[in-house]
């Protein structure tokens, strides 16, 4: 009994050391993916968020895809960083619709004037209701909606330059 018990502290030490080392080397990512990927887009109808773009309803996204649905806000800094990449995607012939979270029309107008407007339609989600219904946990996020109106892919965070080919690829595959 005693002979093996003497090794217990060392064994515990090694076990905890391993646990902490693995936690340090592979930190948790903080991304919470939406469970609605692969499922139909929830129904919504939002008022227009910008003066020169029509409003957005889920029925408009249900057919004729694949499309890109971008969740952004005029007060969100990474959204401004993402704007050039959205422009590239638009020039590649992708139809991009936007949802502005907790925003006001003058702010959205100013944001689009400053950073460019890649959107065909923009809906205003003043109280994050559609965002929560979609299982999105922040701005910016982009959703690829396939031709049947299902969410094919969720991109959490801003689309970086190096993400553009992957997004185009996924859009092509999301028929």
């Amino acid at each position, binding site marked *: 009994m005693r002979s093996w018990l003497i090794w217990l502290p060392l064994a515990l030490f090694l076990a905890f050391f391993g646990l902490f080392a693995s936690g340090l080397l592979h930190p948790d990512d903080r991304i*919470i993916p939406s469970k609605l990927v692969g499922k139909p887009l929830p129904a919504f109808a939002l008022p227009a968020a910008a003066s020169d773009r029509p409003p957005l309803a889920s029925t408009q996204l249900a057919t004729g895809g694949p499309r890109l649905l971008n969740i952004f806000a005029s007060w969100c800094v990474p959204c401004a960083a993402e704007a050039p990449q959205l422009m590239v995607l638009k020039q590649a012939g992708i139809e991009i619709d936007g949802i502005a979270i*907790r925003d006001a029309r003058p702010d959205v107008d100013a944001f689009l004037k400053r950073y460019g407007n890649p959107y065909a339609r923009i809906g205003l989600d003043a109280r994050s*209701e559609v965002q929560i219904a979609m299982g999105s*946990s*922040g701005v910016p996020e982009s959703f690829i909606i396939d031709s049947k109106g299902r969410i094919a892919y969720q991109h959490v965070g801003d689309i970086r330059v190096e993400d553009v080919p992957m997004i185009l690829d996924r859009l092509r595959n999301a028929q």
Partner: protein
Amino acid sequence: MRGLLALLALLLSVPVLAQTALPPAPYADRQIDDPALEKKARTLMETIRCLTCQSQSIADSNASMAADLRSQIRERIMAGEQPEHIRAWLIERYGDWVSYEPTAEPILWPLWAAPLLFLGLGMMLLRGRIKRRRLP
């Protein structure tokens, strides 16, 4: 001195980047008039995790998204929805992650079994000691 002050100001400043100019949703920081309903909403909000500040419940968080979710929960409770239905609706979207309430999923069985396991272990240890004491 001025440099030190500037540094101090920088250290004490709070990031404001992720906040909006929009006023909070109507029931974000306002209680429901009916105390029974407010209690229901409150109990649920304390066990729903904030999505932007991940170690807080939405009841404790100042994030704008948590405020919107608080308001949504209060309004849905006022409309007669049951708290567990709202929890299920959220889990459908964000996974078990969003709820602080432990579920009965197989992955949590060890957690539920732990008290019994430790109680059994304690009994065994106790039995060993009592026996040894009786012997001499």
